[in-house]
Each structure stands twice: as C-alpha cells, then as structure tokens.
C-alpha cells in the first residue's frame, strides 16, 4: 500500500515536472531515476522513462536504470534492447552487441531489435578498425594518413567532435595555408551552429585528402 502510494506520488511529481516546462534536464533525469529506484515501480512506465533518459542523452543513467529493472524482470527482452542502446551511445560496442543478441534470443522476429542489429555490427567493425589505427599511430612517425583515415572512420560512426579534433591535428602538420583553412572552416562551423556540420566536415576531409595526396606525390 505504501509503495503503491509512493509510486503514484512519484509519477505525479514527474508529470508536474514535465508539464512545468521549467525543469532542467538533470532534474528530469533524477526524477526518472527516483521512480525506477522505488520498489513499487511499474515496469512499462519505467521502460518509458528509460527511453526518456536515452533521449535526454543520459546513457550511463539509462544503463543503471535498466540494471535495476532487470533485477525484477530478468527475462524482459526490451530491457536488453535498451541496455544495448545505452552501451552503443557510450561506445561500448561489445556490450551493445552482446545485449542486442540477448534481446533477439528472446524474440528473434522482433523488428525493433533485428533492424538496428545490422548497423550496430557494422559500427562495431568500424570501431575495431579504429582501434587498429590507434595501434598504428604508436608505431609510426608518418601519422598524417593514419589520422585522416581515423577521422573518416569516426565520421562514419557520427563522432563529429572527434573528427574535428583529428582534423585539427592534421592542420598543424601541414603548411600555414592548411592551418588557415582549418581555422576558417571551424569558424564557419560555429557560425552555422552545427547545422551544416556534416557538409563542412565532409569538405574538410576532402581538403585534407588532397593534402595527403600532395604529400604522397612529393615523396
């Protein structure tokens, strides 16, 4: 009875927060976690809250929430799917694949799980190639082509901030005009407020590909 009342009370608090329009992201995150941490939580409502945590970008929190929910519902395939989404966003690809595999083992025909599976496995493959490139960086002095290659790999898994970092490193290895190009591109990127980031980064990679080819020709 007590936990039921408390469940209703917490649910109302969440609704009030959501409807107020004034709640900060972290306040919503705490309220969702608070609900899930209560013994009397309702599983379906809790799963909705985990989805909300994911949409707010609280991936580590969503993993903790799923962990709590799994204690009571260890055979719920959707929880393993949500686990997988959280891990994928934290770049923990092995765990993401493992958990999606688990969700699929319960419901092999569920499209919600099978559709992202292919792209997840593809991402894991690219991720493993990035790890190989990281290793190659240790053993070589000519890092330019490897960093460019890594930037392209990171681009394909939508890690745009990381791409920009690698392109920044490349800009320091070339001529003064390469650095100027980088600075002006970054300035455009910020002016656009990230709206055209994919296009601008694509142009930048194409620019540095030409720089790489120029370097290769000189060799």
């Amino acid at each position, binding site marked *: 009875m007590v936990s039921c009342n408390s469940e209703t009370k917490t649910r109302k608090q969440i609704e009030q927060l959501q409807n107020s329009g004034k709640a900060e992201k972290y306040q919503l995150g*705490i309220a969702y*976690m608070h609900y899930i941490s209560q013994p009397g939580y309702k599983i379906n409502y809790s799963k909705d809250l985990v989805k909300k945590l994911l949409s707010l970008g609280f991936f*580590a*929190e969503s993993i*903790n929430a799923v962990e709590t929910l799994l204690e009571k519902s260890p055979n719920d395939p959707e929880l393993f799917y949500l686990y997988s989404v959280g891990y994928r966003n*934290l*770049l923990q690809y092995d765990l993401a694949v493992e958990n999606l595999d688990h969700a699929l083992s319960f419901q092999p025909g569920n499209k919600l799980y099978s559709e992202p599976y292919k792209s997840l496995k593809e991402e894991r493959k690219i991720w493993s190639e990035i790890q190989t490139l990281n290793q190659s960086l240790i053993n070589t002095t000519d890092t330019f082509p490897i960093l460019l290659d890594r930037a392209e790999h990171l681009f394909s898994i939508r*890690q745009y901030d*990381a791409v920009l*970092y690698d392109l920044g490193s490349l800009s320091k290895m070339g001529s003064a005009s390469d650095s100027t190009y980088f600075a002006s591109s970054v300035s455009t990127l910020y002016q656009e407020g990230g709206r055209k980031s994919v296009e601008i980064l694509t142009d930048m990679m194409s620019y540095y590909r030409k720089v790489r080819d120029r370097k290769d020709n000189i060799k």
Partner: protein
Amino acid sequence: MVKKSSFWAQLSFSILIIIVLDLVSGFFIISDNYNSFRTPHYYFHHGLQADQDTWAVWGSSLYPFKTNSLGMVDSAVYDVKLKTDKERLLILGDSHSEGVGVSYNKTFSGILSKRLEKDIEILNASCISYSPKIEYLKAKYLFEEGFKVDHIFVFIDISDMQNELVYEHFEPRKKSWEHEAFYKSKLFFKRHSSIYYLASSIIVSNQTKQFFKKANLFNQQGLMGTPANVIDLYASFFDGFNDKVLLSNPQFHGVGEWYDNDRFGELADLGIGLGQQNILRLKELCDSKNVKLTISIHPWQYQILKGNVHDYYVNKWESFAEANGIDFINLFPLFINSENPVIIIKKYLISGDNHWNEFGHAQVADYLEGYIRKNVILKIN
C-alpha cells in the same frame, strides 16, 4: 516553594511539548536531500556520516550510497574493525576516488576491493573536495582512533591546487568527546528537528546566494546548465574562504588552466607547494606508523584534451615523490594515449563532467589491480 516547583514543572513540560512537536513536524517537513549524508567535521573539515544506506545524487545521476561504521564509502553498512590481522590498504582522495555519480561496486575501489579481497582489505576514506591537507588530517584522526592500516594510496589531481588554497587557514579543533558529542547532536537535529532544519536551510541558502554574489561566474560564463546539486556542493566548500578578489575571478574557478595562465601560474605553484607540504606531513605520519605511502595522479578533461602525459603538474609531483622516497603512479597514460581524446572523454568520463563513469573506473581498477598485485601483494607473500 510549591509555586517555584510548579513553575519548573510547567517549563519542563512546555519544553518537552515543543521538542515533541518539533520532532513530529520534522518527520513531515524534512524532505529527502540526496546529499544529507555529507557532514562538516571539526577535525578533518568535512566527511561522510557513518552507517548510511541511502541514495546520492550527482548531476543527473541517482545512485545507491552506503557508508561503513567509520564513515567511509563502502558496499554495505557494517562495523569495520579498527585492528585487523589482514593486510589493509586505505584509499584517500577527492570526488574522483569517492566515485561520484557511480554506485560503489562499479568504482575503482569497489572493483579492487572485490577482486583483491582474498589478499588485502581495501577501504576508501575519500570524499568530495578533499586535498592533501584534509587527507593528512583524516589519516591522523583515524590513527588516533586506533585504526590499523598498512598502505595508504593518495589520489591527486589539479583541483587540489585550489582546495589547498581554500583550506590553508583551516585549523582542526582539538579532538575531544565534547566536540564529538556536539557534532553528533547537530547531525541528529539536522535529520529530525524541523526548527533546526528550517533555520539551517535558510542559512545555507543565504550562504549559497552570498557565494554567487562574490563569484558571479555561473551567470557570466553561461554555466546555468550546471546541475544545482553540483553547484551547491561547490559553493559549500568555499565556506570560510574570504578572498573576494580571487572568488570573483572566473579564471580562479577554471583551475584546469591555472598553470597555462601567466596570471595564475604563481597561484598554481602556491597550491602545489601547500599540497606537497601536507603530503610530507602525511609521509612523516605514515613513517611513524610503519605505513607505506603511495601517491597517484590522474588527469582532468582539460588535461586529456591537451594530450601531455607528462605535463607541468605530473612533473612537479613525480619529481617531488622521487625526492622524498614516495611511490608514484601516473594514471595519465590510461587516458592520454594514441586514442582520440574526444572519444576517451566520451568513453570514460561522465557526460559534461570531469569524473570517471563506470568504464573510467574499470580502466583505473584494471591498472591498479596489476600495480597492487605486483607492488603490494607480491611483497607481502
């Protein structure tokens, strides 16, 4: 005579009624505060209350939080024996080592404690905003209580430069039963008395407002998105620090960039110097108790992006450790290596924060497990 005794009886009765009403209304009024297990301390400035089984909040993260009988973050509430035949290692550090935002079992000390339990007992006396001065005082306090330990690992980072300046004039009060009793009764009233709760809420709220007035950086730098629970803790640790010029300078709060900044370089050296003096005091204390001291250093986000595994701060502490015969661990290479720094931050740190997430803690635990097996356990056996 009868009149006099009746007066005292009435007064006592009234006081009793007020106390009962206060405590009963406290039950309804005192709201859940996810940081109420944190407490000021007369000897080591602040710490954690003993025997807590609660939830803690850090940013958007709500996580289970337990402390043992000595007020140390732990996996369960239980009585820690002051003396033990088993080899014991004590971790001392700030919020990184306390493991803010992560449940204890997933922090590096929680992982190590489980993995190494056959060979060594690992305890963690870390707490938010600790720095060498407070770590020295905490160790001294524990020793005076009769706590037996064989190894102390102190975890250091750049926030210690600022903390050491803030704590420079903190003087521990004499250890006495009166102080203990006073603090324990304060804690009791904080948790149960509505009058005390309301009064202290007003005081704390005013102190936080005062802090914002002095240090107006949170508005100026657009940091309003920083969770209030984090800002409140940050504000509370400046209580007693009255250098208004420093407090009002936004760069003072960006401690990560101090030693790259001409104006703050001197302040950085002052903070490092104070920290090193206090580590020497701790070393002396450890030597007198036959305890082996190790210091470990780890990077903040800013340092990860800078990408220097041997930056100014590391060099300062490494050469200090070498000169004073203290074992030194550099955790920078775990977070600064051939991997893209932006990816490292995403993988190992809590989003928008300097602290490790569970994967960052696992990374540290993996490294330290090897270190402890080789340098501590192997030597015991």
